[in-house]
């Protein structure tokens, strides 16, 4: 294409070198020396991946927790989260169109900033997704218990974790044995969720505006001041993890120059608007104090408030689907993250073995499923969510830094179809905002996150110190 890029070199402790072959990208296939990889995903598929991963946990698990912390300003917290996500989605889109390969954020960072940052981000992403999945599963457990309650079965909260574990194990097994038509199912779920939320929002919005129903007593927008708005943003940012997952399937997307930016930016915008509106409606239905007492399934009470039993049932059902779809999408992303680093010899190659019978990466799926179950067992919703956000935010910040680095010294091969508007302000803001959000987290989450990063850096020095990836396409 545009002259030979610098090649990768070096080997890891086991003598494996990164597997990088020259690839020609067309709109419909990636062509390597001997084989072609079909691009089969269209724009709807990309949007479904982004929306499907994001829409689950955030809107169904956080309203109660967020309202308790920030009051009605929780809506602003979600807006801040959306803004940060958008500031990252734009640079990530540019990088994805310049390097439309599978691997996503990890790929851009390892190529733009080198092996050490690549290893830290790649392995942290694995753990970040594991934490996120555990969080989704716990959310699923709460909704599962609520479903049983709605069906008239008296069950205890103690069932939340066992239920979450059961489904976590189920997803892993399902993904190992192959999920034919999973994408179609996922698209259906996303469409159903969107319609449930839109119906709910339209009615709730009318009510909140005082047009139908009884007027509610107005509440101070930010009763606890500005600081909680930002700490709440840090907590709920988990709701936006997912837009960058679109970049991990960049190698499978048709016409990536057009579809990747649209899918990433579009899914952030759609989801962000929905979140902000939902929180606004939820805090209008009840006072934020009462909302926070409802806990993880506060949305069910909001549904009941507006539409009675049917509303409650719709939200319970939606919550089940949403947490399920998020959890499943994340299990898959985790196995892709493991594949990306093992291809680059940062993990043993056998981690990405495919089982010819099912055609699935059983080792990587196991490396996702095992730790997910352990973390799910802890049941610590806020900690799981924040650590997941922490590890993702590091990656998002570094994606912006990688863009700045690449643009400053544009290599010959760098030819993105989409360029960030407002460069360098947008990526610079994206980096600052991502790192700043981390500062608003609870100390416990920060310690766990930093611990994981130190451990991954240690792994780099032990295992893959000699591998070079910078600029190796």
């Amino acid at each position, binding site marked *: 294409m545009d002259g030979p890029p610098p090649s990768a070199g070096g080997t890891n402790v086991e003598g494996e070198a990164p597997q990088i072959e020259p690839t020609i990208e067309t*709109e419909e*296939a990636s062509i390597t020396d001997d*084989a*072609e990889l079909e691009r*089969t995903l269209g724009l709807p598929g990309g949007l479904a991946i982004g929306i499907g991963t994001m829409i689950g946990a955030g809107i169904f698990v956080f309203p109660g927790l967020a309202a308790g912390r920030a009051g009605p300003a929780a809506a602003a917290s979600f807006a801040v989260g959306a803004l940060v996500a958008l500031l990252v989605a734009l640079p990530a889109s540019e990088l994805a169109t310049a390097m439309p390969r599978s691997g996503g954020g990890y790929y851009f960072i390892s190529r733009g900033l080198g092996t050490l940052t690549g290893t830290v981000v790649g392995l942290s992403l694995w753990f970040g997704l594991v934490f996120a999945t555990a969080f989704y599963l716990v959310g699923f457990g709460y909704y599962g218990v609520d479903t049983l309650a709605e069906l008239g079965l008296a069950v205890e909260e103690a069932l939340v974790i066992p239920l979450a574990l059961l489904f976590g194990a189920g997803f892993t097994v399902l993904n190992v044995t192959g999920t034919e038509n*999973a994408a179609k199912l996922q698209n259906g779920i996303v469409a159903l969720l969107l319609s449930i939320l839109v119906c709910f929002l339209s009615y709730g919005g009318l009510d909140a505006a005082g047009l139908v129903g009884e007027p509610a007593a107005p509440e101070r927008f930010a009763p606890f001041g500005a600081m909680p708005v930002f700490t709440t943003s840090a907590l709920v940012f988990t709701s936006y993890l997912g837009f960058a997952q679109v970049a991990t399937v960049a190698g499978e997307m048709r016409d990536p120059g057009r579809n990747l930016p649209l899918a990433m930016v579009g899914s952030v915008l759609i989801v962000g608007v929905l979140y902000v509106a939902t929180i606004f409606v939820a805090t209008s239905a009840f006072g934020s104090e009462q909302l926070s007492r409802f806990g993880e399934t506060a949305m069910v009470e909001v549904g009941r408030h507006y539409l009675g039993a049917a509303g409650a049932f719709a939200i319970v059902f939606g919550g089940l689907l949403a947490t399920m779809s998020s959890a499943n999408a994340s299990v898959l992303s985790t196995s892709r993250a493991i594949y990306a680093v093992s291809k680059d010899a940062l993990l043993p190659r056998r981690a990405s073995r*495919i089982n010819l019978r099912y055609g699935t990466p059983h080792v990587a799926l196991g490396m996702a499923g095992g730790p997910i179950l352990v973390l799910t067992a802890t049941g610590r919703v806020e900690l799981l969510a924040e650590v997941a956000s922490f590890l993702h935010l590091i990656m998002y910040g570094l994606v912006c830094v990688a863009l700045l680095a690449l643009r400053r010294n544009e290599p010959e091969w760098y030819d993105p179809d989409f360029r960030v508007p407002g460069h360098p302000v947008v990526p610079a803001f994206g980096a600052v905002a991502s790192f700043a959000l981390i500062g608003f987290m609870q100390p416990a989450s920060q310690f766990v996150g930093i611990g994981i990063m130190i451990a991954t850096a240690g792994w780099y020095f032990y295992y893959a110190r000699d591998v070079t990836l910078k600029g190796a396409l």
Partner: protein
Amino acid sequence: MTRVLVPLAILEGESASAGLTTLLEPMNVTVLGYHELPEQTPPDQARLQYEERATDALEGLATEFGAADGTADYRLVFTHDRTQTFDRVAAETKADVYAIPGTAAPIDRLLVALTGDVAVERIVSFVGELVCDRDIGVTLFLATDDESAGRELLDTAALPLAGRGIDVRTELAVDELPLEALVDAAVGHGAIVVGERAPSLRTLVFGEEAERIAAESVGPVLVVRHVEEGAGANGNRTRSDDS
């Protein structure tokens, strides 16, 4: 020369029978080795692990189809959606015909189905080119409700083939279910040639109909692709000029 695309699920051990390789000798052949993956597996991951094995197998197959004489080549594709892959590769290689491999002993007679709204002229000219001057007989088959028009069509189609010295017979099925009649007629024929009806080969090659024909006749089925009037080799999807 017409190019025939032979898609084979290479890692599942699908291969071409001796009968098919002999039959396609006069043609240019592209062996399309493909491996279809479930959605959760990135195609590149499978390539990393299986490219070498698949390439070895494909090289052997391409040799059987005459790679040494330059009339055959191969491509290897990892995909989530094989029909999309077939469409794309057929358009890129300008292949007019697909083969569903089947199993076949040496073929001495072809059944050529002209039923339905198919491009009779293109099918007949392909058959002429395929048979060449070999000792292979051709049965033209048509299922229709209109006996006289059907007879006329068959006779017109048989003319150029007979003119090339080919042993042509015709068979007309009136008021019968087209598919059943075709499968019945297939007895005693080594391979079947059909025309693709809809704009996409999906409906015929891998739809119920083609699968039944292929399954019930056992032998190879050659599908002459549908080409839209005035369009190039591909008419079923908009594509950019540079791909």
